[in-house]
């Protein structure tokens, strides 16, 4: 019964992913607190771990209000989309040699497709809210995703060239001799920037920039629907970290004194902390700065990286 795609694997991955995503709210608040010389939530339970439960109970009992002017079916659909796409993408990740849900030959493409689909949550949510701030937010989300998706995909093509496969498990196994973060360093940088933009987090949280457009596309959401947007964001943070580890940091590969899954978890935790550090340290750019940075810096860098990688790969005859 054990192995890739078993029932135990499916449910364990689903529960662990959602559970970790919920506890990321606590981790983020504690870490940002520490970095700002505060303590963060430390009252409820040991180390404040009960804060997540308390927040969950609160958000379940909050009034789930749908504005009378909203487009009701679409309004309800939007938070479901972000949760679905965020959880769906966890299915294609190889966590350890025999842990995973499914190994697709085109796993990487499917994963990119899932992250692109998640923008529909922002766009539909903002559109259905019938609110100008929400619409501004979803316009920004759409433009940001379109522009950052381009070089996110292009940056990964170098990895695909070196490993010769779109299958994520084979990409991990191709890193036995050396992680791709060395040979594909610029692709890694570009992918990190694009991942932050894809997850709509600071410094690229322009779709929900609360100082400019209230709360962006989820301005009109309350109660558990807002909670789903919230958990969806943390799910995509977790997913981006997992993806960076799988593509550039050798997935479960590591010295033998720890089991493969532990290596995976450790590396992922490290990248989650990097995401939180980015939020704690960097200010939000202006919208036009973000767009021009994407098209004028990131796109050329990823194209040059792709060209050089292709040339070297041909020259070495691999």
């Amino acid at each position: 019964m054990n192995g890739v795609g078993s029932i135990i694997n499916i449910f364990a991955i689903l529960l662990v992913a959602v559970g970790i995503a919920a506890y990321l709210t606590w981790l983020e608040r504690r870490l940002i607190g520490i970095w700002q010389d505060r303590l963060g939530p430390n009252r409820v339970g040991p180390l404040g771990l009960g804060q997540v439960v308390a927040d969950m109970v609160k958000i379940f009992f909050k009034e789930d209000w749908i504005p009378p002017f909203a487009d009701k079916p679409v309004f309800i659909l939007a938070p479901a989309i972000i949760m679905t796409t965020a959880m769906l993408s966890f299915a294609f990740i190889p966590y350890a040699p025999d842990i995973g849900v499914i190994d697709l030959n085109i796993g990487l493409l499917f994963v990119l497709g899932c992250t692109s689909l998640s923008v529909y949550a922002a766009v539909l949510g903002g559109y259905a809210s019938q609110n100008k701030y929400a619409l501004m937010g979803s316009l920004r989300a759409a433009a940001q995703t379109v522009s950052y998706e381009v070089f996110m995909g292009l940056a990964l093509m170098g990895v695909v060239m070196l490993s010769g496969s779109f299958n994520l498990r084979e990409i991990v196994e191709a890193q036995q001799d050396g992680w791709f973060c060395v040979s594909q360093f610029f692709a890694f940088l570009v992918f990190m920037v694009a991942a932050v933009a894809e997850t709509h987090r600071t410094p690229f949280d322009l779709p929900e920039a609360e100082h400019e457009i209230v709360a962006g596309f989820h301005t009109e959401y309350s109660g558990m629907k807002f909670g789903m947007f919230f958990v969806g964001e943390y799910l995509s943070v977790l997913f981006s970290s997992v993806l960076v580890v799988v593509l550039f940091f050798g997935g479960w590969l590591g010295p033998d004194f720890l089991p493969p899954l532990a290596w995976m978890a450790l590396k992922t935790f490290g990248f989650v902390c990097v995401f939180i550090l980015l939020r704690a340290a960097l200010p939000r750019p202006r919208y036009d700065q973000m767009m021009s940075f994407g098209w004028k810096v990131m796109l050329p860098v990823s194209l040059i990286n792709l060209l050089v990688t292709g040339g070297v790969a041909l020259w070495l005859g691999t």
Partner: protein
Amino acid sequence: MKLLSLLLSQFTGMWLVLTHTFSKADTVQYPEQKPALFPRYRGRIVLTRDPDGQERCVACNLCAVACPVDCIALKKTEDDDGRWYPEFFRINFSRCIMCGFCEEACPTYSIQLTPDFEMCEYNRQSMVYEKEDLLIDGTGKYHDYNFYRVAGKSIGGKDKGEAENEAAPIDVKSLMP
């Protein structure tokens, strides 16, 4: 080149934030740890007494006039000696913003702010302090000051010209200097 320095500044910013992992938190965990309050901290308002144990307040109303949120109410009355004092003195602490303007306005050092802010109540009406709640037995921050001993106003037991450093009153009907 400009772009590179911009990129570098992002990383130095992140490094600076990361070094704060090891710096101590400034948080005072309040109910267990008490914050250090200084003697001139502006908290709960009291009415003080002069060194003789009499009320300092002369009900001049300057504090009520100075109060930006109008939380002070009082009414003047007079005792048999001719001393003025407030018949009632009422501060609504649910409005008070602890600005200390009343203390600055007070000509007799009567109204003073103290380093105490723990005055939460479950009942809103309990935030209204009457004179017996405000009046303390001591002299507060100014131990020697006694308004009636230095002021020219005559009260029972102290006539005009008998106050400290006060010359005898000039007889305006006389031609002598």
